[in-house]
C-alpha cells in the first residue's frame, strides 16, 4: 500500500518579532505546499487537480481561541486568494466557522455577499443548522447547513493545538465546529467521536484537503492560549490524508514538548487515540511507517 504523503513547509521569517504574519511569505508557503503535495509545477495546476472549476469550496477554520490562537486571517484569506487567482469564482468560496462573534474576535471581517468571497458563520441569518438529526454510529447531531448544503468541497484549515482532552486538535477535530453539539463528544479523549464524525457523509464525502496552521503552535495547556507554551513554529502542514496530516501535527507537538522538557502526551495519558480509530475506519494512516513526510523550507 502506498504511503500517505504529508508536506511540511517551514517559512523563515513568516512571523516578525512583533508577531505579525508576512502575507507574501504565507502565499509562497501555500504555493510551495501545493506543488510538493500534488507534484505539479505550478500551484494553480496543483489546485486544479484538487478542485473542479466552479465547485463551492468551504474553508473550515477554527476561531474558538480568539485572535491569538485561531486560524489566522492572513492564512485563510491567502488560501482563498490562491484559489481565486487560479480560476475559482470568489462567490463560490466561503471561509467559515460556528459563530460570527468568534470570527470577528479572531480578526475576520464578515461578508455574506452573493457575488464575492464569503466569510461568515453558521449563526448567520439564513444559514443555521439542519433540523433533522444526522445519526451515524455514536454521532447524533445537526449539521451546519454551510457544510451540508452550501459547500461541495471542503478544506479543513485548522489551527494545530495541544488539547487537554483530545490530546491534539487539528484538521479532523476542526469539524466539531460543523455540528451543533460538540460538547457531547469530549468523553474518552473524544474517541471514537472525532473519527466517527469525520466518517459521516456530510464531511467524508466533501473533505478534500487538510492544511494545518502551525505558524504558532500551542504545545501545552491547550486549547486556550498561553504565551509561555506557544511556539512560533512558522510551519504549514498539508495532506490529502486527514489522519496523516493530524498524525504529523501530533509529532510536531511532541517534538516541541520534548524540547521544552514536558512529558509526552502518552505520559500524560492523553494521546490522540482517535487517530488510531480513524485509521481502523479506513480514513487514513497514522503510523510513521505509513506516512511519507516531505519537508521543505522557504
Amino acid at each position, binding site marked *: 500500500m502506498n504511503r500517505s504523503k504529508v508536506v511540511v513547509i517551514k517559512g523563515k521569517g513568516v512571523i516578525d518579532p512583533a508577531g505579525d504574519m508576512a502575507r507574501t511569505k504565507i502565499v509562497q508557503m501555500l504555493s510551495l505546499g501545493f506543488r510538493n503535495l500534488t507534484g505539479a509545477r505550478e500551484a494553480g495546476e496543483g489546485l486544479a487537480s484538487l478542485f473542479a472549476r466552479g465547485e463551492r469550496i468551504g474553508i473550515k477554520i477554527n476561531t*474558538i*481561541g*480568539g485572535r491569538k490562537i485561531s486560524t489566522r486571517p492572513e492564512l485563510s484569506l491567502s488560501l482563498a486568494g490562491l484559489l481565486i487567482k487560479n480560476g475559482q469564482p470568489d462567490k463560490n468560496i466561503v471561509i467559515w466557522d460556528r*459563530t460570527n*462573534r468568534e470570527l470577528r474576535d479572531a480578526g475576520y471581517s464578515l461578508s455574506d455577499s452573493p457575488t464575492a468571497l464569503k466569510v461568515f458563520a453558521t*449563526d448567520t441569518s439564513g444559514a*443555521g*443548522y*439542519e*433540523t433533522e*438529526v444526522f*445519526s451515524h454510529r455514536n454521532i*447524533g447531531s*445537526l449539521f451546519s447547513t454551510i457544510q451540508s448544503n452550501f459547500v461541495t468541497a471542503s478544506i479543513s484549515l485548522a489551527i494545530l493545538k495541544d488539547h*487537554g*482532552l483530545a490530546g491534539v486538535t487539528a484538521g479532523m477535530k476542526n469539524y466539531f465546529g460543523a455540528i*451543533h*453539539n460538540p*460538547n*457531547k463528544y*469530549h*468523553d474518552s479523549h473524544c474517541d471514537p467521536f472525532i473519527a466517527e464524525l469525520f466518517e459521516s457523509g456530510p464531511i467524508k464525502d466533501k473533505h478534500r484537503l487538510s492544511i494545518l496552521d502551525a505558524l504558532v503552535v500551542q504545545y501545552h*495547556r*491547550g*486549547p*486556550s*492560549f*498561553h504565551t509561555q507554551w506557544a511556539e512560533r513554529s512558522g510551519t504549514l502542514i498539508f495532506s490529502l490524508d486527514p489522519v496523516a496530516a493530524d498524525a504529523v501535527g501530533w509529532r510536531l507537538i511532541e517534538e516541541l514538548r520534548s524540547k521544552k522538557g514536558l512529558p509526552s502526551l502518552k505520559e500524560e495519558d492523553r494521546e490522540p487515540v482517535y487517530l488510531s480509530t480513524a485509521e481502523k475506519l479506513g480514513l487514513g494512516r497514522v503510523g510513521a511507517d505509513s506516512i511519507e513526510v516531505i519537508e521543505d523550507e522557504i
Partner: protein
Amino acid sequence: MKRRRFCETLAGTGFLLGTGAGATLNRVWAFQNTANLSHVEARYYKKHPDREIECLLCPRICKLGDKERGYCGVRQNDGGTYYTLVYGKACSANIDPIEKKPFFHFLPGTDAFSIATAGCNVNCKFCQNWQISQVRAEQVPHFDLPPVEVAAAAERTGCRSVAYTYTEPTVFFEYMYDSAVEARRKGLKNCVVTAGHIQPEPLQDLLKVVDAVKIDLKAFRQDFYKEYVRGELQPVLESIRMVSRSKVWLEIVYLVIPTLNDAEQDIRSMCRWMAKEIGRDIPLHFTRFQPMYLVKNLPPTPISTLESLRDIAIQEEMHYVYVGNVPGHSAENTYCPRCRSTVIERFGMQVKAVAMNKGACGSCQYPIPGIWA
C-alpha cells in the same frame, strides 16, 4: 383558557416576546444573540492554574480550559471563571397540571408554573425534548425571566408550585435555586423533574429549598446508562437515596422502552432495591415510550408490557405503581393499599375525583403518603 391566562400574564410583565413564549417545543432553528446569554458566575466548581476549571455540579466533573463549555452546553469557562449562560434565560414557560410531570402524590389537581432553560448533562438517545435539551444555550429561542418574575408569574396565574422541568434543571442550578427561594417567599412550593445525575453537595443544598423531586430512573443497568444515556447509574441511585432520606417528597418515573430496558428481571431487581433503600411508599410510574430523537426504530411501548411490569412491582409489594402516557388506563388512579378503594381518580392529566380525608383513604382512613395541601 390556561394558555390565554398565561399569555396575558406574561404580556403584563413585559417578557412575552414576539416568538410566543411557551411555544418552544415547536421551535425554529434560529439563533439568539449570544450577547443575550447570562454571565453569572456558576456555583460548584474549582479553579485550577492556567485558567482551567473543574465543574463539580454533576458526576461528569468536566475539566475545562479557557473558553470551553461543559458537556451540558450552558456553562462556560471564561478566563478561568466558570459562568452559567442561562441564568434567568427561560426557553420554555408554561402552566401545566402537576400530573404532567408526573407527580401523583403532590398537590393533585393543581397547576405548576413550569420553566426550563436549554441544556442537559446527559444525552439520552430517546430524549423526548431533545430540541431544547440537547442544544447549546444560544441555539434555542429564550427570553428574560428572572427568578423574581418566575415567582410573581406563578402567583399571578394561580399556580400552587413552580416546576423546574422539560430539560435537565441540574444544568440551570443557580437559576432554579434562586427561583425556588423567591417562590417560597410567596408561599409557593417547588418541584424538580430531573434525571438525578447530580453531585451530592448541590443536591443537598437544593433539597433545602424544594418540596418534591421526581427522578427519571432510565434503567437499572449501568450498561444501559453508558450506551443510551451517556451517564452513570450509581450517582442516580445515590440521588434517589438522598432525596428519600430528606423531607422532600420523591416519585420515580421509569420510561419503558421496548427491548432496551423492559426485562422483567431488571424491574424485579429495581423494585427490590427500592423496597430496601427507599421504601415501598414511593410512587413508581411506568410510562410509555414514543419513538423520538435517535431511537426511532422501536415501536411505542405495548400497553401489555406496562401492565406486566406494574404487576411485577405489585408482586414486589410496591404500594403505589402507576402506568403513564396511557390516558384512561385504570392504573392512572391511586388505590388505597389496605382496602383497595380508589382514593384519586384520574384521566390523563386531569384529576376526576378525590376520596381522601386529611391525607388518608376516605374509606378506611389508611394514611396515603404525599404532600396534599
